[in-house]
């Protein structure tokens, strides 16, 4: 994508850039019937600068998705608070677009309508909404698939439509919850590259949750490691100094990638073992 290359020359955001998202001592608990309150996430603080791509990596079930939901405003934290561009968050986060792990498209609308509706509900005229939606369908490589219904598309294609649906609204913040989790390895890498190219167009702040360390390093500027739950917390924060623009597949052959991977994996390994150790204990 040529546009991506043009933007890549721009310097990375200065460290003094405004904060897109700040979590201040956010903790998450769940009350379950007849059981003590489950403290999923211990008080946690995290900052995401404007234009920064941050990945949260942790073992399955560590509560990283709940942190993302708190940032989206879908879940109320048990303690602490979230600020978005300096304003405390109440209700849903209107600045954020959210790409879910599971299929979130409306099955009764065609792919194009699914994208267009995101604009229509904001008051855009249908004709304009459709035109813009078609633009985004082209950008995600599905220009000719607009009239298909979600069940007529492959998992990877549905994810692309989902991406178009989120991006067409031009949100300032992008929240992604293991978005490529259900896809096969090759498709994931293709989707990763597509995401990086689209992101390079206007460099939104991204909070990307994944359990796949390779994916996290390949895509992001910073990798944040969470410990196993309960009372999960951030146990590591690594800047990723790989050159951009990147190709999500090719970057994995870079020696620097291996060094970073080894460094982070050494820490993550212990946490993963902890999760499995508890699960396997009699």
């Amino acid at each position, binding site marked *: 994508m040529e546009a991506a290359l043009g933007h890549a020359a721009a310097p990375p955001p200065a460290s003094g850039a405004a904060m897109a998202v700040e979590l201040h001592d956010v903790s998450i608990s769940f009350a379950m019937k007849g059981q003590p309150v489950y403290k999923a996430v211990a008080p946690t603080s995290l900052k995401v600068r404007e234009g920064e791509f941050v990945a949260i990596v942790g073992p399955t079930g560590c509560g990283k998705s709940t942190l993302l939901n708190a940032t989206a405003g879908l879940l109320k934290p048990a303690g602490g608070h979230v600020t978005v561009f300096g304003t405390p968050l109440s209700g849903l986060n209107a600045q954020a677009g959210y790409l*879910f792990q599971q299929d979130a498209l409306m099955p009764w*609308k065609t792919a194009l309508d699914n994208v267009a509706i995101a604009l229509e*509900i904001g008051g855009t005229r249908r004709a304009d909404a459709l035109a813009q939606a078609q633009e985004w369908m082209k950008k995600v490589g599905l220009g000719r698939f607009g009239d298909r219904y979600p069940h007529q598309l492959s998992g990877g294609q549905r994810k692309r439509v989902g991406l178009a649906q989120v991006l067409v609204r031009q949100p300032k913040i992008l929240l992604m919850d293991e978005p490529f989790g259900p896809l096969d390895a090759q498709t994931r890498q293709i989707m990763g590259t597509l995401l990086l190219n689209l992101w390079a167009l206007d460099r939104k702040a991204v909070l990307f949750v994944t359990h796949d360390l390779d994916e996290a390093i390949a895509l992001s500027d910073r990798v944040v490691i969470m410990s196993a739950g309960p009372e999960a917390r951030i146990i590591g924060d690594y800047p990723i100094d790989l050159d951009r623009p990147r190709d999500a597949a090719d970057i994995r052959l870079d020696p620097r990638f291996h060094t970073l991977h080894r460094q982070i994996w050494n820490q993550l390994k212990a946490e993963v073992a902890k999760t499995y150790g508890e699960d396997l204990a009699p």
Partner: protein
Amino acid sequence: MKLHPVKLLLLQLLVALVALAIWQVGATVPIGDTYLLPEFFFSKPGDVLVRVYTLFATGVIWKHLWITLSETVLAFLIGSVAGVVFGFWFARQPTVAAVFDPYVKMFNALPRVVLAPIFMLWLGLGIWSKVALGVTLVFFIVFFNVYQGVKEVSPVVLANARMMGMNERQLFRNVYWPSALSWMFSSLHTAVGFALVGAVVGEYLGSAAGLGYLIHQAEGVFDVTGVFAGMVILAAFVLVIDWAVTRIENRLLVWRPQSASEQN
């Protein structure tokens, strides 16, 4: 393995022919001095077909078919509208649902036939007592399906729509409504079937016209041929309605993946 359509049709016809042949033989060929299917109780396929033909040829049947069709359609429409409205209301207002829950269960558990005499008393012997009976049957099917449809909207689709910025009205139009409709249409066959059951049973219990009336009249004079002729026409009527419903369903639910049950 998939059968060739022509071959399938031939096999289906063969089943009918074998059944008719057994019936004919049972009714006309004595074993010893008894008949397997005595004509008095079972009539004969030939007679039944002649009777069906006569009913159509003389034009007597059209009035009855029209009455039964009107009752079915009215029962279906009124029951569906009421079911949709109450289904939505209950699903979006858990308090209302909780308060009315025992009564809904009670009415649904009640065999609807026992309501027929009450409806006759209230609404007379005309079509409306039959429509009312059909409505009580259709209502609960549509009600439960719409309720379920609204309750079981995928939480992810809902969260996604909310994150998109939809307000309650937009959620209703774009998420709850289509989901509820898809559940309702999945029960369309059952609902239409029950509307017809309500109409025919109502007619059977007391009326002056309709297929149920026709069957009841024939039964009253031990006219078994007439009973069977009525049943044949009723069965054909159901097939036609079912075919029409399938056509409508396919038009409205294009977005749904074809499931095995819909492909026949």
